[in-house]
Structure formats: C-alpha cells, structure tokens
C-alpha cells in the first residue's frame, strides 16, 4: 500500500501539521513528527520578534473555534534553533513566513532555506493582523510579485496559503500560480461577543474561524481550484477524522493539514489518521493514495 504523496516534496503520508498550532517550540514539532505527521509547517515567522496579542487569543464553543494569536513569533534569527531541534526527527519541516512585501518574504525564505527546511509556505492570508496576511494576499499583483521573487531566490519548493475571505479564489490562485502547491484554506475572519459582559471575546476583537465549521468552505475551495487550475493543492480546514481527510483528497487535495482538531483529539490524531487511512484503503481495495486524489471532480 502506497501512502506517499508528492507536493513538491515527497512525504510519507498525506498528514501534515498546519501552521499556527504547536509549532513554535522545536521540541513540540519534533514530537509531532515522531508521532505520525509526515511533515510540520512552522508557526509563521517574520523578520523580527513580535509579541502578538494579549489573551484571550482563543475562543472555543463547539462547533465554533476562533483564534487571534496575532503572528507572535521570535523573529527569523531566533527561530534557527527551533528548526534544528525539529529536524532531529529526520522528517521534513516546512517553514511558514509572513511579510509585508516581496523583499521581506525573500529574505525570510532564504533564511528558512539555510536552516534546512524542505519547503516554504507563504502566509498570504492571516485574517486578523493589519498590514500582513490577508491584506497582502488580497492584492493579486503583490501576490504575484512575492511568489515570483521568492521562487527565484530559493531552490526548495514554495507553497502559497490563500485566504477564503475573497470573492474570487481563482484570481488569487492565478496570482500565485508560480507556487509549487496552493494551501487552501486559511481561517475565515470572524468574531463573537459575550453577551453577559457585552464585550468581544477576543482581545483583538476579530479572529480566524477554524475547525469543523469551515470544512464545507475548505472543500469547496480545494475542489474549485483543483478543477479549474489542475495545480497541486494541500487541503486544510476542519479535518477532525479520516473521513474528513478522504473528503479533501477526493476534492483534489494531494495532502492535508491538521490544526484545530488537535484541541479535541490531541497529538495522537496523526497516528489515528494514518491507521484510519490504511483501514479505509484496505477495505476499499485502493493500493495507492494517489488514485484517490480528485476523484469527486466531475
């Protein structure tokens, strides 16, 4: 049975840790890589240290899951040692980076490459920090410029993580077409108010909605982008179990990322997804995971 997939890098199963969850401390990434994840995407790293927002940075009320961490990160220079620790696992690390323009992204990508990551993930879609993420990602010309420049400066594959907060995903995908793969989707911008205190529940007011609520949105973007562009897609958004992962794969994802589900299921979810996938393929007579990619596309 073959679980290997190719997303620009070859990985041993389709399950990847999503950026922003348990990927700030090298030891945590290492542990996750040693427990079933084929790869991890690091927390998004910028040029300099950033505190992010004060707590509350998350709000959970099933099925709603919101976060606004605010791109807290130690800065690219301080992150070298964390990558080094994670790489002790012998499995690939994908470096997520955020910046405000092409030169910033390029500098970050080059440093990440020098740290030994296997690929770069461009965060073009964080929904809750002004001047970064979604604000960058919703400008197609800027996205085109960033992707082009990063591609020309590093040898490793480059992934673009796109925003679901858009009226035209195909335009976004087109702007990022030089990427080796498109990562769909980042969180949906959202917020909640606590009516007893009459205050927004997140200190930043706005946050990103993730988890099971956004799975139908993620499936739709993966399906539409795969169908219309044929590009390699990495699916992310609301995957809680192996059936959700299979749904993304059938919609056109070559691999999937897991984030919010760790809250409910813990790190063991990666081993559970692997055994669940093997069981599914076995039961359905599928010997190669690649035969499942995009089968639902009409």
């Amino acid at each position, binding site marked *: 049975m073959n679980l290997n997939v190719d997303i620009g890098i070859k990985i041993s199963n389709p399950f990847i840790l999503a950026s922003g*969850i*348990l*990927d*700030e*401390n090298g*030891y*945590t990434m*290492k*542990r*996750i890589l040693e427990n079933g994840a084929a790869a991890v995407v690091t*927390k998004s790293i910028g040029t300099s*240290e*950033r*505190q*992010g927002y*004060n*707590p*509350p*940075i*998350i*709000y*959970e009320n099933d099925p709603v899951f919101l*976060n606004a*961490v605010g791109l*807290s*990160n*130690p*800065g690219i220079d*301080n*992150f070298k*040692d*964390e990558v080094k620790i994670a790489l002790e696992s012998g499995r690939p690390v994908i470096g997520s980076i955020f910046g405000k323009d092409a030169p910033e992204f390029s500098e970050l990508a080059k440093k990440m490459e020098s740290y030994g990551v296997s690929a770069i993930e461009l965060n073009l879609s964080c929904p809750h920090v002004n001047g970064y993420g979604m604000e960058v990602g919703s400008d197609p010309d800027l996205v085109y410029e960033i992707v082009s420049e990063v591609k020309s400066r590093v040898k490793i594959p480059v992934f673009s993580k796109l925003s679901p907060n858009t009226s035209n995903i195909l335009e976004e995908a087109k702007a990022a077409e030089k990427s080796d793969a498109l990562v769909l989707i980042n969180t949906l911008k959202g917020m909640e108010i*606590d009516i*007893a*205190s*009459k*205050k927004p*529940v997140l*200190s930043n007011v706005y946050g990103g909605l993730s988890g099971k609520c956004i799975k139908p949105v993620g499936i739709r973007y993966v399906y539409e982008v795969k169908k219309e562009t044929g590009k390699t897609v990495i699916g992310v958004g609301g995957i809680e179990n192996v059936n959700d992962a299979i749904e993304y794969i059938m919609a056109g994802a070559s691999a999937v990322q897991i*984030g*919010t589900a*760790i*809250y409910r299921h*813990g790190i063991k979810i990666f081993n559970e997804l692997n055994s669940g996938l093997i069981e599914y393929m076995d039961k359905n007579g599928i010997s190669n995971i690649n035969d499942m990619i995009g089968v639902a596309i009409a």
Partner: protein
Amino acid sequence: MNHSIVYSNVRINESTHSLRFFMESPVHPGQFIMIWAPGIGEIPISFSSVNNPVEITVKIYGEPSKYIANLMPGEKIFYRGPYGRPFTGVTGKKLIIGAGTGIAPLMPLVDNMTSGILSAKTKNDLIFTDRIKNLYVVTDDGTLGIKGFAVDALKQMDINEFDMIYVCGPEIMMKSVYDYLLNKTDRVEFSLERPMKCGIGICDSCSINGIQVCRDGPVFSIKDLKNMDEFGRTRLSFSGKRIYL
C-alpha cells in the same frame, strides 16, 4: 464564556486576594481556570480550594490580575475551564512544598495528615500559614522561619515519612527540589508554571519537550520530568523566543 457571581473576596496580603464563587463543573486539586477580565485580558489561575464555593488566589502583577483581585461580591467573574490534569490523591502523610503564591494550588491537598514547607522572599509575602498545621517556614531574608530556600528545609526532613510530596513554585525552585529528590523517591508531583496563552494545548507557549503543560499537565510526576530536559533549563517567551533559565 462561563460566568459566576463572586461570593467573597478576602485580601490575604498586600497584593494577594482570595476569591470564592460557585462552579457547576467539579474541580480537582491542581487544576486551573482561565479567568477573563473583559476588554482587559485573560490569565490562568489555580484553585486554592476545590469545594464549592471554590476559591482562587490571585496576586496582582498586571492589569488582568488587578481587575480580578478587585472583583466585589455580587459581581460577575468570567472564566473557561477547569483545565489540566490534577494531582494524584493519596491517603496518608503528605508534604507540600510551595514558594510564594505557588502554595495556592497545593492548598486543596491539605488535611490533618499534611506537613508543609512554605517559602517566600520575605515574611509579608507568606500566605496561608494559618491553614497548615505542621508548617516549616523559609524566607530568603530570614524575616520569618529558616533563612534560605525551600530545599534547605527539605534537607532537614525525613522524606520517607511521606506517602506523597507535592511541589509548586518558580521552576528554578522546583528544579532544586527535583535535583535533591531525584533517585531518593518516585512519590513526588510537581505543578509546573509556564506562560500560558490558550490553556487548551494548541498554542505551544507552555510546552516542555513537546508536552503541553496546560493540557498534559500542569501536574507531572518526578518520573515524567526525568524525560524532560527542558525542565529547569529552557522555555519559550511570550513571543516564542527561547529563554535559558
């Protein structure tokens, strides 16, 4: 977000308050809650009593703790939780070792079979001295009890007397207790304090060797800690920058 109504608020020293309120979910010794100061911030706080009305003890060190410490009876207190893996209960003789407000999460363990080592920088920082019968007080400046550190008091005791030793305080203090007790007994549990943001095991702020203190802890046995070489050595800052202790 859950909320309850403050039942009582007692100032126990210059900058420390104990608040009581009723909670529906059962709480176990060693667990914590995230308390929200709407529009201000959110911090993790341990329980100094787990029986209804439960008690939390908060030391003022920033805006959210100041807001919480000043909540008056009848006001709403907002929280999520309880979270975390509790202490293992034992019948028999117990020793608790706490430094400063680190004694608070150990208080629910106190019964008439419990001895305590309570350390602080100075006399006025000591709390809950009246709640523990067999108490050994240690201060850095010698203003009360032995002058020195918690581990100095511990060294004068026969640890085999105790069925379980529970420790809570700054990591550097816990590391010295750990180093002393290592290979002497396995019946020790530590409650770790690391910067927490999410409280539910996803933000990686409080992690130690890949383990989330908020979710898999905060209570760890001395055996657990043997496999954690970050303990007493290194952690991440609020931004995610590695700090050497």
